[in-house]
């Protein structure tokens, strides 16, 4: 994954924060990769993180297991971006593997 991929995912997560959770435009505009999603950052609570995960799953076609729904995942916009990238690359690898298996 490239730096551009990171930026693209981060941008889409920020868009979801605005469109799905109504986080204000000024908070989003001043948020960076290292802005915390919980507490003294974007200020999400547990109910909102669940709503964010649902929209991320929908947007990126990934699945987030309960075990991954930790404080660490929502530590910053960056940690969430990294996670989404990781899940996307996992699913890409999985798809490629399936395609290879089906060709055998």
């Amino acid at each position: 994954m490239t730096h551009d991929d990171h930026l693209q995912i981060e941008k889409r997560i920020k868009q979801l924060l605005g469109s799905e959770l109504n986080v204000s435009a000024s908070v989003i505009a001043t948020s960076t990769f290292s802005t915390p999603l919980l507490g003294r950052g974007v200020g999400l609570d547990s109910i909102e993180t669940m709503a964010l995960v649902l929209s991320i799953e929908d947007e990126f076609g990934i699945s987030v297991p309960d075990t991954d729904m930790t404080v660490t995942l929502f530590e910053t916009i960056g940690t969430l971006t990294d996670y989404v990238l990781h899940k996307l690359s996992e699913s890409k690898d999985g798809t490629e593997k399936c395609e290879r298996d089906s060709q055998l």
Partner: protein
Amino acid sequence: MLVTVARQNSTRVAIVEGETTITYAELEKQIFALSAQLYHRGVRQGDRVAVFLPNGLDFITSYFAIVGLGAIVVPLNDQYQQTELLHFLSESRVSMVVATQPSAAVCRQVLLSYDSPCLLLFVEDREKTTKSGSGDVFIAGIDPDTPVMYQFSSGSTGRPKRIARTHRNLVFELNSLVRTLGLTHEDRFLGVTPFAHVNGLMRSMMASLRAGATLYPVPKFERQTIAEMIQEQRISVFIGVPFMFGVMAKTNYGRRLDFSSLRLCISASAPMPPKLNRQFYEKFGIYVRQLYGSTETGTISVNLSTEIERSLDSVGKPIAEVEVQVYGENGQQAQVDEVGEIAVKSPAAIRSYEGSEEPARESFRDGYFFTGDLGRRDQDGLLYLVGRKKFLINKGGYKINPLEIEALLETHPKVEEAVVVGLPTSFGDEKVKAVVVLSGPCTEKDIIEHCRGRVADFKIPSLIEFREALPKTATGKIRRSFFAPSTQSQ
């Protein structure tokens, strides 16, 4: 109550918590052991003991051990922060807090500011076996009209008001729930709604134990864990809030789940949007039934209609022996489909707030409790909630008093004035929005930071708007309706 149920169902499984399975006989022993421990630490009849615990066996044993001593349980939301904890301890004159070690630092800090003697008991130190095992410290013949539990209304007109429900109130409500919902010892309850809140406490924890059923307490809502639990443990009764059912309806589980064991899904504490309900039905093959209740009255009604598709937005008909009236603006009983304030007469209801005369006169009249909810009844007698006369915010089932948050915001040195309102979400609840007039430079993050740690996270505004001034009436009152539509609450 529990002792009788335990003896009738002694070999049946009462609680399943992770790998731990407890029969009713074992549960009774654990309760006796803890009550003896509490007694030796000085708890006596009429004392107030706070339970600051997540859902689980510890909460259940603590609750019944306190009740058995004739003391009063004060269940507290385990998300509360120091200021809130101190407030509720002070309002209840609590003499002991039962908590977990992870919350030790918060509890100790709070007790430094608390002006009465108060002991701390950590459940990690709780006695699980007792030599006598007989419950000999239990009080026999407790007056059924004495308080068993203190809870707090969200306080639409000021500070939260103390609600003292009696043994008689609770026994009536539980017996009524068992009859109305046809609960039996064969049922398996999911206990995921917080026990510190009336919905989880009465309709999940207490109803399960009253029916001699099996309760699966869960400290936290996790959608995959819950789905697996329903499927694998063959859960039959799921008491929740719209947010939980909505999340499950929207989650792509990637496989077909077998929820055929579920015979009752009941949602309370906030309105369940019909669209989400249909999604839930399409995915799991069962409709969620809406239940209406309040901390003051207990359960009022539940929608068990056989034509549920046509009445998804109804909270149903009153349960046995509960009387509901709808009063129009002229103070007369409303006609069919006419909107008015809902008033409730129930043997499970309190008769007044404790230590608060003024709101009592407003809310308790002619044997009815005036709920502040606006609703209507259709020609079949089904009740529909359409809004709130009072202006509480409903966040995921938790009621938030905007005045509390406004007062907190106005303690910020750069905030001149603030109004807090609820904005509807797709889950049927609301998010907290603050509209703030500043007296100096300040950012949204400054405001959020100011709130953090002073109130529970769910009360902190997730939307902040800055304005030059707030719209007001001729008498200087803020026009709340300018910022948000009226909301309803269950």
